[in-house]
């Protein structure tokens, strides 16, 4: 598809830096548009060129844009170039606004925001814009020279010509325009109407890029000032000063034009400054849809970047760690310490896993192990949570039982295996019993601690309203402790999964533990390690599942607890 060629006029001022940054970032990447910035040095020439249609759009002073439209040039205002961003520079010996009386002040154009702001400043200081000072029009890039030569006493213009005067010690910044009118608009991007009609997508792409550039300048002024130095023929330090002095003299992060702002500018130009201008209907002149779309796009983009970053942190990095491990393992088994038959390579193990699943019995083993863990864990939960609630809420009972619990708890679940087999024979029961024994104590202790850590004020309030006994337990203590109990359950499930394998190695005829033992009897180390890998993977999935459950319960304003009630 043919790209639309868009020529956009600008002046070498920081107010138009968004265009430079936009082009630097995106000009080579645009899909629909071939964007060509065209530099001017005079507002008059820029506006004449726009009138003839030699350029398609321009960054231009808002009052001048209104005046052009009023005189019949078919343009629309579609985006701001910036907000604030101008300075009043004076000779070093001038210290107050009042001292400007009788002086020569340069403005960039009769229909300029700067003239309007100067008018406001002088009026507030009790001076008459028309009578008390002499106004002359000079192109922005010539102002500094004129001040140097002494042809003028002061000028009001866009940055970086204030920062430049400061850096060269020619003049000083008497005030910035943000102090005259906070957040004021100044230069706007206008486009010829026929361009908007014919090249909608191209314009949208440019505006998206400009809005992103605005955000970029705000977030990375240093980087932006380097781009700006080239774009504006300035020193980076000068641009950086303009972007950061006084907390930033130029605002680039809010480019949404508001109809009211321009109505006010138009009214001020006509009613206060008494400049000749046929008032136009501003709401027809200002078109916000491009910028609104661009900001929606920007928000989505930032969200996407954030997600991408998180995805890298949470998925890519862990995968790298696993890969490093496998590479290390592979090297270790290739050159390594142990014979290949003792330490198979990851590839051998992958083949073994494949073999296991093709043969199919592994599925039965996995289900057997999972069932034992599930049954023992659920039984233990049903027993240990209520007991934990009771122990946690009654000091006397806790004191009585605590030493007993701590004693039994220290007996390894493995030590219970022989008696479990004697009591329950072979089959699932002894394994379930072992898991039950394994799970009881961590759940019990987690529940007790959860209850003990409930804010006493909650209990006090509940008791005040007459909650006692079962009511207090079920309506207050359990729901208040529930999120912490769930954490205990998650940890316990992990332990249970560790123990079930051990239990299955002694006296079981199925399950993952048995499978590993069986493989050892056939000296199949590849199958042994395959079994270990499978155990690890399932343990990981169980933990993630419980973590998810835990987060959901704690995030949903503890509504899981509500459900329990």
């Amino acid at each position, binding site marked *: 598809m043919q790209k639309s060629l868009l020529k956009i006029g600008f002046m070498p001022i920081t107010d138009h830096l968004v265009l430079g940054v936009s082009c630097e970032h995106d000009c080579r990447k645009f899909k629909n548009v071939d964007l060509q910035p065209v530099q001017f040095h005079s507002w008059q020439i820029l506006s004449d060129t726009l009138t003839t249609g030699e350029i398609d759009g321009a960054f231009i002073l808002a009052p001048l844009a209104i005046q052009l439209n009023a005189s019949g040039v078919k343009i629309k205002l579609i985006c701001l170039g910036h907000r604030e961003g101008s300075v009043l520079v004076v000779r070093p010996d001038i210290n107050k606004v009042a001292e400007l009386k009788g002086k020569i002040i340069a403005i960039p154009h009769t229909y300029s925001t700067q003239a309007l702001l100067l008018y406001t400043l002088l009026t507030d200081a009790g001076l008459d814009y028309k009578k008390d000072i002499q106004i002359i029009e000079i192109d922005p890039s010539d102002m500094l020279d004129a001040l140097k030569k002494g042809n003028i006493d002061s000028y009001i213009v866009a940055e970086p010509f204030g920062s430049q005067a400061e850096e060269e010690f020619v003049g000083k910044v008497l005030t910035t325009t943000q102090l005259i009118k906070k957040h004021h608009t100044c230069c706007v991007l206008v486009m010829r109407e026929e361009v908007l009609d014919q090249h909608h997508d191209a314009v949208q792409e440019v505006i998206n890029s400009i809005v992103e550039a605005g955000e970029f300048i705000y977030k990375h002024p240093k980087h932006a000032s380097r781009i700006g130095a080239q774009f504006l023929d300035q020193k980076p330090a000068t641009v950086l000063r303009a972007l950061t002095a006084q907390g930033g003299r130029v605002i680039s992060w809010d480019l949404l034009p508001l109809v009211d702002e321009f109505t006010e500018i138009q009214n001020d130009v006509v009613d206060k400054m008494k400049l000749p201008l046929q008032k136009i209907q501003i709401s027809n002149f200002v078109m916000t849809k491009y910028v609104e779309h661009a900001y929606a796009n920007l928000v989505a983009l930032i969200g996407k970047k954030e997600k991408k970053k998180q995805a890298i942190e949470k998925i890519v990095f862990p995968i790298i760690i696993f890969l490093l491990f496998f590479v290390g393992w592979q090297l270790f088994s290739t050159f390594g310490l142990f014979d290949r038959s003792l330490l198979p390579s990851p590839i051998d193990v992958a083949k073994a896993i494949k073999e296991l699943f093709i043969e199919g019995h592994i599925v039965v083993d996995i289900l057997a192990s999972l069932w034992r863990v599930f049954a023992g864990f659920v039984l233990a939960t049903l027993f240990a949570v209520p007991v934990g609630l009771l122990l946690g809420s009654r000091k006397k009972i806790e004191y009585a039982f605590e030493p007993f619990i701590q004693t039994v708890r220290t007996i390894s679940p493995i030590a219970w295996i022989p008696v479990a087999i004697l009591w329950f024979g072979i089959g699932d029961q002894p394994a379930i019993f072992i898991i039950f024994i394994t799970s009881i104590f961590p759940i019990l202790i987690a529940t007790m601690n959860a209850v003990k850590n409930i*804010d006493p*004020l*909650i209990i*006090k*309030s*509940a*008791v*005040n*309203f*007459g*909650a006692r006994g079962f*009511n207090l337990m079920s*309506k*207050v203590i359990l*729901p*208040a402790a*529930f999120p912490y109990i769930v954490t205990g359950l998650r940890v316990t499930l992990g332990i249970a999964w560790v123990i079930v394998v051990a239990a299955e190695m002694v006296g079981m005829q199925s399950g993952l533990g048995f499978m590993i033992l069986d493989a050892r009897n056939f000296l199949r180390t590849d199958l042994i390690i395959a079994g270990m890998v499978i155990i690890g993977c399932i343990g990981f999935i169980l933990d993630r599942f419980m973590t998810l459950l835990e987060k959901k319960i704690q995030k949903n*304003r*503890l*509504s899981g*607890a*509500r459900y329990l*009630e």
Partner: protein
Amino acid sequence: MKKEQIFIKNVNKCFSSGEPDELYALDLTNLSIIKGEFFCILGLSGCGKTTLLNIMAGFERPTNGKVLIEGKEVLGPNHKYVTIFQESGLFSWRTVLDNVRFGLEIDGIEHERSIEIAMKYIRLVGLEGFETKYSNELSGGMKQRVALARALAVDPEIIFMDEPFSALDTLTRINMQEEVKRIWKETGKTIIFVTHDIDEAIYLGDKIAVMTPRPGKINTIFNVILGETRNKLDKEFLEIKKQIYKELGLSL
């Protein structure tokens, strides 16, 4: 006729450490509070005012003496007299509505009816529209409003308030003071209000008992005879303030 509702009879409380010189946190002679009164207990921190409130509300037992409410000795907490604390003590797993319903639920009030009552008090404290919110979605001031609605819902005879606004920012606190005053007028409950804020006490109270520490004692009870609307800059207001400062041994 003015009816005496709470009577404190020679109450003292010591936190015994087993030593012979036991530390008395509180040592009160007789004190009575009239039904419907807004009774402030004012004192600097550590003067035993919270201990006194806890004893009245039944959360603590006095070492000697007793507290009578409606002629009956207070032996434990009871939902006929509900306490509001510095922190709201809301149930985080319940919505605003279900928090306010809590006491009614415990009383076995039928579900539909309990919602009706709860809504009435949610409206009274100005939280209509927030029924389905959870406490972590509410500001500090809103939480205290919920706590107030939850207390009012069980139609208690007395509401104890233990520095209920001291954790709030100044503007919210002033706002809540007005609210409590309005609700007190609308419901006619007896309110026992513990505070260390002198302005707050004069602004709200019919009576102000000024406590001095070690052991906690009430030497003077000020009758605040200011009108319905109180201005913290009025001459009379400042006069009472001056007296209280003097009583507390502070210089103005």
